[in-house]
C-alpha cells in the first residue's frame, strides 16, 4: 500500500500542476498548462537567485572567518558567532560615518524637497509665461551634463570640498522626481485652488495650506526617492571628501572592499592594500542595508506608485 502510494505521489503532484485550469469558461490548452507550470518554476528560481546574495551576506555575517575562507558558508551560518558585529560596532569610525550618512541624508532630502516642490508647483501652472522654457532647461540636463571634471573643478572653486554642501547641493534636484511631482500637481483639482484664491490666499498660502496638505502621498514618495538615493550614494563623497571622519558609511564600506581589489591605485595610495576579513565586510554591508530592508514595504509601495504616477495616463 505504502509503496504504491509513494509511486503515485509524484504522478499526482504532476497531475495537479498540469491539470488544465478553466478560466472564464474556457479550458486552457495542454501546452499552455505545461508552459504555466514551467513559468512558475522559473519565477521561483529567479526569486531564489535574486535573494541569494542577500542570504549569503546574512550567513557570512554570523559565521566565523575560517569557515568563510574555506568556502563553507552559503546559506547557513557555519561556526556561529556574533563577535563580528561586536567588532564592527566597536569601531568608532564606523559610527561616525554612519552618523554622517544619516545627517547627509536628512539635510540633503530636506533641501531637495524644498527645491523640487517649489519648482514643480510653479511649472505645473499651465498659464505661467515661460513655462516651456523652464521645463526645457531642466529636461535638457538629463541628456547632457557637464561631466565629472568640470563638476569637480566647480566644487573645488566654490570651496565646497570637505563640506556637506558638496554632497547636498550638486544633487539637490532630480529631474525625474521633478517631473513626477509636476504631473501630480497638474492633476490637482483647480477648483480648490481657485476657491482658496477667492478667499484671499496668495500663491504661497495656496501652496502651503491647500496643496501641500493634500499631497501627502506624493510628498512621501518623493522623500523616499531622495532619501534612498542619498543613503546609497557614495561617489560624490568619495570625490569631494578627503578626510575619513567626513565619509558617509558607503565610502567606509568602499574602503573595506578596496582592500580586496589589490592594486587599485587609489587604495594603494591610501595604504589600504590590506585584505579585510570577509565577515567584517558582510556585517558592514548588512548594517548599511538594514534601514532600507526594514523600510522596504513602504519604499516599494511608494516607488511603484510614483512610477505609475509618471507612466500611466489618468
Amino acid at each position, binding site marked *: 500500500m505504502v509503496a504504491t502510494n509513494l509511486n503515485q505521489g509524484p504522478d499526482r503532484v504532476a497531475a495537479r500542476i498540469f491539470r488544465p485550469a478553466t478560466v472564464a469558461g474556457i479550458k486552457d490548452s495542454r501546452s499552455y498548462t505545461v508552459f504555466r507550470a514551467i513559468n512558475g518554476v522559473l519565477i521561483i528560481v529567479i526569486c531564489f537567485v535574486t535573494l541569494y546574495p542577500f542570504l*549569503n551576506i546574512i550567513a557570512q555575517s554570523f559565521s566565523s572567518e575560517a569557515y568563510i575562507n574555506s568556502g563553507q558558508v552559503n546559506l547557513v551560518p557555519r561556526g556561529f558567532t556574533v563577535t563580528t558585529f561586536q567588532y564592527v560596532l566597536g569601531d568608532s569610525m564606523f559610527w561616525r560615518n554612519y552618523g554622517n550618512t544619516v545627517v547627509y541624508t536628512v539635510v540633503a532630502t530636506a533641501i531637495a524637497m524644498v527645491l523640487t516642490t517649489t519648482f514643480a508647483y510653479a511649472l505645473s501652472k499651465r498659464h505661467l509665461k515661460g513655462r516651456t522654457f523652464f521645463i526645457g532647461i531642466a529636461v535638457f540636463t538629463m541628456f547632457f551634463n557637464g561631466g565629472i571634471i568640470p563638476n569637480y573643478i566647480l566644487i573645488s572653486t566654490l570651496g565646497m570640498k570637505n563640506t556637506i554642501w558638496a554632497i547636498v547641493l550638486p544633487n539637490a534636484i532630480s529631474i525625474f522626481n521633478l517631473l513626477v511631482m509636476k504631473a501630480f500637481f497638474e492633476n490637482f483639482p483647480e477648483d480648490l485652488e481657485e476657491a482658496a484664491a477667492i478667499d484671499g490666499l496668495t500663491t504661497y498660502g495656496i501652496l502651503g495650506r491647500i496643496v501641500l496638505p493634500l499631497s501627502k502621498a506624493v510628498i512621501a514618495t518623493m522623500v523616499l526617492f531622495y532619501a534612498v538615493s542619498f543613503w546609497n550614494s557614495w561617489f560624490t563623497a568619495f570625490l569631494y571628501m578627503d578626510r575619513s571622519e567626513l565619509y558617509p558609511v558607503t565610502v567606509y564600506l568602499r574602503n573595506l572592499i578596496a582592500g580586496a581589489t589589490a592594486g587599485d591605485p587609489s587604495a594603494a595610495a591610501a595604504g589600504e592594500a590590506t585584505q579585510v576579513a570577509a565577515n567584517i565586510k558582510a556585517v558592514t554591508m548588512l548594517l548599511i542595508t538594514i534601514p532600507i530592508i526594514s523600510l522596504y514595504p513602504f519604499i516599494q509601495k511608494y516607488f*511603484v506608485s510614483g512610477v505609475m504616477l509618471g507612466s500611466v495616463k489618468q
Partner: protein
Amino acid sequence: MSINNSVAIAEAVELRTEREEERRSSSSGRRRPPRARSTGRVSWRKALTRDWRLYTLLILPVLFLVIFRYAPMAGNVIAFRRYRPGGSMFGDEWVGLHYVQLFINDPTFWRVFWNTLILGTLALVIVFPLPIILALMFNELRSARFKRVAQSISYLPHFMSVVIVAGMVLQLTAMRGTINQVIEGFGGEAIPFMQLAEWFRTVYISSEIWQTVGWGTILYLAALTTIDPQLYEAARIDGANRWRQIWHVTLPGIRPTMIVLLILNIGTFMAVGFEKILLIYNPLLYPTADVIATYLYRVGIFSSQFSYAAAIGLFEAIIGLTLILTANWISKRAVGTSLW
C-alpha cells in the same frame, strides 16, 4: 547623481511624452472649460505682475540649474584651454584642439573607447530585452499573492547601493565564493574571476541583470494594465490561443513603452555603469574593464590632467547626445513614437 539611472530617466521621459500627447489631444477637445486668464498671449510685464509670486518660487531652482548644471557644461571649455589648478575654472589660455589630438593619438583612449562600446552593446542586446520577458512571465501568473511576492523580491536589488552590489559581486566571485563552489561541485576548477580580464564582461553583465531586470519590468507591467481586456476577448472569439494573444495583443500593447525605453537605452549607451566598474575593477582587468568614464576619472582626478580628461568627457557626452537624438529621429520616422 548615479550615472546608470537610465530607468529613472526612462520613467521621466515616458511621463513627458504622455503629457505631451495629453496636451496635444486636449488642444482639440479640452476636458476643462478654458479659463479666462490662461487664454491668449500675455506680455512679460503683465505675466510678472500677475504671477510674480510663482516666479519667486523659480528663483532658487533656476539658480541651482545655472550653477550646478549649466556652469559645468560651460566649464567644458577647458577641453580647449589650458587649466591651472587654482586658476579660473574656465582655463587660462586657448590651446585649440591640442587635447583632442592628444586623446586621438592615445592608444589607451582607443582601448577604453572600444571597451565602452562593447559593454554598452552587450548591455543593450542582453539586458534590455530581459525585463520584457520577465514582465510577460509575471503577467501569466494567476495567483495574485505569488505574483506580488515575486515582484517584491525582484525589485529589491534596485534599492541597494552600488557599493553593496560591488561587495556582493566580489564575495560571490572570490576564489572560495559561491560561484566557484558550484563550479567545483560540478568537477570544474575554480576560476579567479577578478584576475582574468576575459571574465570581466560576463561578471559585469550578470550583475547588471541581477540588479536591473526586476525593477525594469515595472514600466512594462504598468503598460500591460492599460491594455483593454476586450481586445483579449475579441482575440479569443477569433480563435486565438494564448500564444497568439501574447503576440497580437500583449506585445503591440507594450510597444510604445518598449520603443521609448530602447531610445533611452541607446542614449545612455556610453554611460555604462561607471560607479560599479570603478568599485570592482583592478589593473589586471583593465584590458576589458577600463571604460571611458573610469579612464578619465583616473586621468583627471587622480593624475590631475584636468583639461585632457575634460576633452575626453566632452567627447563622450557629445556622442551620448548624438546617439539619443539620432535614435529619437529614427524612431519618429520609422514607427511614429518619439520622446519629443
